């Protein structure tokens, strides 16, 4: 179920818009290493390196696989509603670099 703040986020150029109403998960090719300020995320396939700069975002990325969509993941991780937009944008960025991927419907 999507709310006004968590509808599909447009990604530049010819990419498919990120749809937070779908189930997602961290890609299996990605390793996530905790850091004091968040986490280092490295994709062994495309060699991309990203930093998650907040601990709650780290928790969200890890929890994606257990929830049917992004909003329910954010709620389960106690992310304040006011920050949901920022988190969806962050996840859209991660999907663009293939750090997170769509998973098949359970």
């Amino acid at each position, binding site marked *: 179920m999507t709310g006004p703040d968590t509808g599909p986020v447009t990604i530049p150029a010819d990419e498919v818009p990120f749809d937070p109403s779908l189930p997602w998960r961290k890609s299996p090719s990605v390793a996530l290493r905790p*850091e004091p*300020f968040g986490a*280092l995320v*490295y994709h*062994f396939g495309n*060699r991309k390196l990203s930093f998650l700069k907040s601990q709650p975002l780290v928790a969200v990325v890890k929890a994606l696989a257990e929830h049917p969509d992004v909003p329910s993941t954010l709620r389960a991780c106690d992310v304040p509603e006011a920050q949901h937009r920022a988190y969806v944008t962050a996840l859209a960025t991660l999907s663009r670099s293939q750090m997170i991927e769509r998973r098949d419907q359970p």
Partner: protein
Amino acid sequence: MTAVLPPRTPVQRPTGGRLIDQFEYGLDAPICLTWELTYACNLACAHCLSSSGRRDPRELSTAEAEAVIDELQRMQVFYVNVGGGEPTVRPDFWHLLDYAIGHDVGVKFSTNGVKLNKARAAQLARTDYVDVQISLDGATAEVNDRVRGTGSYATAITALENLAEAGMKDFKVSVVVTRENAGQLDEFKALTDSYGAQLRITRLRPSGRGADVWDELHPTMAQQKELYSWLLANGDGVLTGDSFFHLSAFGEALPGLNLCGAGRVVCLIDPVGDVYACPFAIHENFLAGNVRSEGGFQRVWQSSELFADLRNPQTGGACTKCAHFDACRGGCMAAKFFTGLPLDGPDPECVQGYGEHALAARDLELVTPKSHIDHSHKGPVRGQPTLLGIPSIPAKICDESPLAGLDLR
């Protein structure tokens, strides 16, 4: 009752904000690191940062190298840059390559190409998580061989041909920018494009034998400006290893973290297990410890005094008052150290000119710091570089056997 140690908390680490502000305080493990596998090398490049040539008898054994890889895996260091000397002259190189990849540590190795025959190229092309970087310092044999030695251009090109023919993807050509090749940037790009390779250009530092040739080889101010413009215009797809962040003071920042990673996000493990802040700082002042000590590499990375110092960002110093400090961060620590400049002052190649003033202001009697770690070949080397005006012994066409292992003392 056993005391419970509190979790290690960083001192006064800021929350949020820029990533590089976090990096200045250090990480629990490097993002990636350089690992020089051997000081042995079949070449004798005039500017070698590690003063390589002769094998050190105290080199890490295969088992010790495997133990380092095990540690890197545990610390979740995802990626290591292997070099030397010439890493492929170690008989166990290919074994260690497979071992690293099999233990979740991706490898990029830097080579002069001497061992990359068709069979090895084919092997690399079908191996995942390995990246190859061929060193080349001239777009022509004439320019290249003056610094790297007779036949070295041919060796590199043969390796590039073999890799391309084998279908290798994403391999790199790494160029150290010098006064002599700074005008060949377009040619380098064309050359690497023709092999389907990626161009990487990096900064010459006055490190290792580089200190001996720095005065005549480092780019002029005018060349630095041209280089900066070239990077802005052609930077997409050209790697730099963030080594030109001092040029950011010209204006728009170049891509990359734009900061010195030494001891904070990167470091060096040398062939005898010594851990230095950076491959360009192989000097006792920048020696943090040794992987053979108790606690191994992890203890050195996390607890050495040197690294704690580097992770305590300094305030004050001449550079911080400059309007461009935010862009250039005071430049390269190694460049300052080996030219005898204070570490909190300008980089010798400061684009605002403060470095030149500082160099001129040095005591005339100053002896610049020299590293005692020198594995250079002692006697004349076949095909040696002619840059320093020493006549070259002609190289054999198929001289593939390295001098490594031979004691030339």
